[in-house]
């Protein structure tokens, strides 16, 4: 069981202007000792996601639905008393701006000891010792002297170290870092990131790293969640996200950053501006800015498709691609099974109307089964070809739009296909997920 399981989280802010859907169905797991990066532009809901986990949302914000399980314990609706025990103790957070997240009227020592006194049964003296120990851990020189100083006597990098010391004082299982280095210079950023990595290795805690800096993510993270307009686009290991991005937004993001390879060339920005969260479109939130958007993208958001055991993306292009692959193999299987494709032109017309367009398929169109002929084929093929052939054949229907909707209804009872790269279904065998 993962240390932290977030499932289909929806968080909204109820403002005078209407409901702002800041987080729309985000799911992820975090294992012990792993570093998870959440990447996205401002307003993509990355901060709100972790504030929901900590339940430190602004008064207008509320978790509408979903589940957050920490070590098996459900946190949504758990109440203030439970949360107080978790905040700063089991899960700690470091905020973006080290200049404003420390109280200027208390000494550093006082603020460090506060969490220790609250969450452990140490007395004041022991808490002092623990605080000094924590400052040493984060490489603050002369910790005893520093304990008696006020935040204004610290530089930005030093304040962020104090914040880290404070967050780690109770040895949390999870450290949430909300843009911890955005306000810092690169050399200081490198120090802080290195410190976090070192402490993470020594203490074996998990880190959720929120940032918009893809360089920081590449350096720090095992796994990455890419968010856009409150929805999560893609999730995978760092290598999968950087070298095999499967959502158009992730691809656009990676293309738009300057690297040494872009010198002398034009960057390829994502056109348009981020979306208004008050009026989310019905379909994929990225569709209005997406160069590869199809008709279906505007009408309906794509489901999360499993591309590998660690890689998931919600983009119709993946559905299209896998459907095409499956369509071809289904056609081959069906040919072997002695099927004929006289009604191919009907299917093509159905597809056209269904919005995917003829561009999707030309030769493969034969294999794309509209509802009726599919049922027919299933029966016949199931008789002739045992096992996987039939399963793949059935998958052909994912292409047609009407069939897609149909498959959505059924998808709960479908198990994963023998082909590990696609999320498909086995109509005959039923759910064994």
């Amino acid at each position, binding site marked *: 069981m993962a240390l932290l399981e977030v499932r289909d989280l929806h968080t909204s802010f109820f403002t005078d202007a209407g409901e702002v859907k800041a987080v729309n169905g985000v799911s992820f797991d975090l294992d012990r000792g792993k570093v998870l990066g959440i990447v996205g*532009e*401002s307003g993509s809901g990355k901060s709100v996601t972790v504030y929901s986990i900590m339940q430190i949302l602004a008064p207008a914000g509320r978790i509408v639905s979903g589940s957050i399980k920490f070590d098996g314990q459900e946190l949504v609706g758990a109440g203030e008393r439970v949360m107080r025990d978790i905040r700063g103790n089991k899960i700690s957070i470091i905020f973006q701006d080290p200049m404003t997240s420390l109280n200027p009227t208390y000494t550093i020592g006082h603020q460090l000891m506060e969490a220790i006194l609250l969450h452990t049964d140490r007395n004041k003296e022991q808490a002092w010792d623990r605080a000094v120990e924590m400052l040493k851990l984060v490489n603050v020189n002369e910790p005893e002297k520093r304990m008696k100083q006020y935040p204004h006597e610290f*530089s930005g*990098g*030093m304040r962020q170290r104090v914040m880290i010391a404070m967050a780690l004082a109770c040895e949390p299982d999870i450290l949430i870092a909300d843009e911890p280095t955005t306000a810092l*210079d*690169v*050399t*200081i*950023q*490198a*120090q802080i*990131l*290195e410190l976090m990595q070192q402490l993470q290795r020594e203490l074996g805690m998990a880190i959720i790293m929120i940032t*918009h*800096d*893809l*360089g*920081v*993510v*590449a*350096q720090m993270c095992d796994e990455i969640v890419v968010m856009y307009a409150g929805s999560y686009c893609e999730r995978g290991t*760092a*290598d999968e996200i*950087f*070298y095999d991005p499967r959502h158009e937004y992730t691809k*656009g*993001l*990676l293309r*738009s*950053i*300057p*690297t*040494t390879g*872009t*010198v002398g060339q*034009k*960057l*390829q*920005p*994502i*056109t348009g*501006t*981020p979306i208004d969260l008050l009026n989310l479109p019905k379909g994929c939130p990225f569709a209005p800015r997406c160069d590869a958007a199809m008709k279906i993208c505007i009408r309906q958001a794509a489901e999360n498709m499993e591309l590998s055991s660690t890689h998931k993306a919600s983009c119709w292009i993946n559905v299209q691609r896998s459907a095409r692959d499956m369509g071809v193999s289904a056609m081959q299987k069906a040919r072997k099974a002695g099927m004929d494709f006289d009604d191919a032109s009907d299917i093509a017309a159905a597809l056209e109307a269904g919005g995917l367009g003829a561009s999707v398929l030309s030769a493969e169109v034969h294999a794309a089964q509209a509802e009726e002929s599919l049922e027919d084929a299933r029966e016949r093929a199931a008789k002739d070809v045992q096992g996987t052939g039939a399963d793949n054949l059935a998958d052909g229907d994912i292409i047609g739009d009407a069939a897609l909707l149909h498959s959505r209804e059924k998808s709960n009872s479908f198990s994963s296909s023998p082909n590990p790269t696609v999320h498909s279904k086995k109509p005959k065998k039923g759910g064994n997920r």
Partner: protein
Amino acid sequence: MAAQGNDAPLVEVRHLKEYFPVNTGFFKTTPLKAVDDVSFSIKRGETLGLVGESGCGKTTVGRTILHLYEPTDGVVVYDGKAVVGPKEKVDIDKFATPADGGSLKGNILSLNEYRTKTTMVFQDPYSSLNPRMTVSDIIAEPLDVHKMCANAQEREERVLELMNRVGLNSEHASRYAHEFSGGQRQRIGIARSLAVNPEFIVCDEPVSALDVSIQAQVINMFDELQEEMGLTYLFIAHDLLVVRHISDRIAVMYLGKMVELADAAEIYDRPLHPYSKSLLSAVPIPDPKIARANKRIPLQGDIPSPLNAPSGCPFRTRCQYATEACAASMPEFKEVEKGHFVACHRTADINA
């Protein structure tokens, strides 16, 4: 100097100093040396990137070049003419070179004229636009100040032309700044800076406040404007990947001093100053395999306060190669290879 040739510098900064008086006690002020003896030049049509940590004086350099701050000492020579403000008392002839004929006094560019050729794009698109002015008034303000439009119609045409040039919709002319997103606001700021048809623009962290995807749009726009209008940029930023992308040459500053200046590719591939080396190694590369393999050269501690900067080389307190010579004197900023300037006593030893 006629300065018509391609190699003649458009902007020449000679021994520029900018000290701010800071109250350090009763009746006592100490000069804060924000910029301390900086010299460089920018060719026409070139982009010079200026990088460094916060507090190193890069923004002050940009503003002092435009005489938004009156220079404490030193002179800016623009297109062969010394820029002198009406009340400025710097003895500019100290900085005259034989090429100027030994004197700059007879060759002066008034501040008013200078400001029709040079403009600035500011970092924060949220605070650099007046919230009480419409977009068209914001963009037309430099035109009004310099009385560049004969009548209202000409003014309006010019505003629409500028808005069009930076990719803003002409319908937005009568709106206010708060109705726009960060990227669009930065476009308004750029349109304003283009209003007087400048030759030289100081861009002070123009994309730092923007999201990655918007950042790319604005960077491309800077590129396109440069191509179309032959602009010269001083591009100040702390994002080294952005600077690398846009700059022809890059200058590195530390604590008010310039420590290295070279071609963009040269400084990235072969930085000679120990500070440039650690600065560049600290940049997170957006590629997991490179990032994991990247060996950083760690820098201990923080940047010292410019109020009591270390003696000699300002970087010596954090430099692993520092010797007594470094504490004794400030190394000269000299050309060690063609076009590669470094200020370090030990350049030869540490790069052997």
